[in-house]
């Protein structure tokens, strides 16, 4: 992750498939997980759209590896926003994920849930948070970005991002641990 990938970006922009493959390998799972929270009904499509946009403007990107990752997630953020705008116009809405959590059996022990918690279930749980909190948390945890980068992507102040993540974690703790009602959601 920390490696010097700026040359990789340059090489990929020139069509170096091995260099591009490394970038893709690092970022594609993060993108899928980001969209699983930000636009769950269209995660794979939006990840593909993001890569198409990345590939098309790869030759214009200048910066180091963290900047590249932030750039990719800036594109992803806009894809998610566009998708929500389109979805708002559609009659059939994506199924709200809150429902999944509420379907969980009330007597499942929290410990069992923690052990068997899949990535997908964890992301679905994060997705139950208010949109900004969920996105701030997933950008920090899954995309591996810093507060300032997340602030840039979400067009907010760093202090606001701190508040959003704090509230999100707190709300997760309330749901997961407080009264022992953590469930295997998926």
């Amino acid at each position: 992750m920390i490696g010097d990938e700026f040359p990789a970006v340059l090489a990929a922009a020139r069509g170096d498939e091995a260099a591009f493959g490394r970038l893709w390998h690092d970022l594609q799972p993060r993108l899928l997980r980001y969209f699983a929270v930000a636009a769950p009904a269209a995660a794979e499509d939006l990840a593909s759209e993001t890569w198409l946009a990345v590939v098309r403007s790869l030759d214009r990107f200048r910066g180091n590896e963290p900047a590249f990752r932030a750039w990719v997630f800036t594109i992803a953020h806009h894809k998610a926003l566009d998708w929500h705008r389109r979805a708002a116009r559609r009659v059939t809405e994506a199924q709200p994920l809150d429902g999944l959590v509420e379907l969980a059996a009330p007597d499942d022990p929290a410990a069992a849930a923690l052990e068997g918690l899949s990535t997908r279930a964890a992301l679905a749980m994060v997705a139950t948070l208010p949109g900004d909190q969920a996105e701030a948390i997933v950008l920090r945890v899954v995309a591996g970005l810093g507060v300032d980068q997340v602030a840039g992507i979400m067009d907010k102040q760093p202090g606001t991002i701190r508040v959003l993540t704090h509230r999100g974690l707190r709300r997760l703790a309330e749901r997961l641990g407080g009264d022992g009602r953590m469930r295997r959601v998926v």
Partner: protein
Amino acid sequence: MAADDASSAEMRRLHPNRDADPLALDEETVERLLAGELPPAQAPPEYAAVAALLAAAAAPPSQKELAGQAAALAELRAVTMTRAAATQRASKRKRRRRVGLAVVAVAGALATGGVAAAATGHLPEPVRKATRSILVTVGGAEPATSLPLPASSARPPGGDHAGQPPPPTDATVRAPGTTGPAAAASPNLKGRCRAYMAGKEAENGKKLDVAAFQALARAAGGEDKVQAYCQRLQPPRPEPGNTKPKDPKPKDPKPNDQQPGAPENPGQGQGNPHATRSQSR
């Protein structure tokens, strides 16, 4: 949405009194949770589940998540190829545009009489080529490099003669009565020399009318020196040597090699008509 009610009160809750609020978090714990540095066992008890959840969210990628690489690579390939093709097209367009500009420049040069700039290589090679073709089409005249420099092509190569070539038009004007075709058609000294030399020895000068011969004699510095003068003048070689120094196209040292027989070469008998034409204008 929740960002709107973010306030300083909220910020203060980042440094809470845990007795009052069991779910309170300090900023360092938040950062460690987000960074995955707090295993559930080490996290505050209320946040053990959160730590496990965040760890699951950031777990190593599954094979399923890494399944689409071929498609992404295909996109990269397509975009790279499209871009390469676009770059080629762009450079072709650029070249075409440059020639287009050259046409405009040449048209302007013709309009303002500034053919010199265009024809003598102040413009790059494509422009000169365009100039050539346009001039040929428009005026039937070949813009040889000597075109704007009539004096240089008419002037004998030797420095001693350079200062005193009588203007050929002068001779023509001074001998209006002598209607010899040579004099009328060829007010140029070289042309006269050719005519003079054409008849050998005894015939020398017989093919020239009086006025033309006298113009030659004036240029040569005497009737007896016409022969020597013309021999110096006649060899075809001196002409390019005479023109070249005034020709500012250092990158094009061998126009003759590139365009064998091209009218651009004034040393092979085609320079004179041009010089003649320009002089008689």
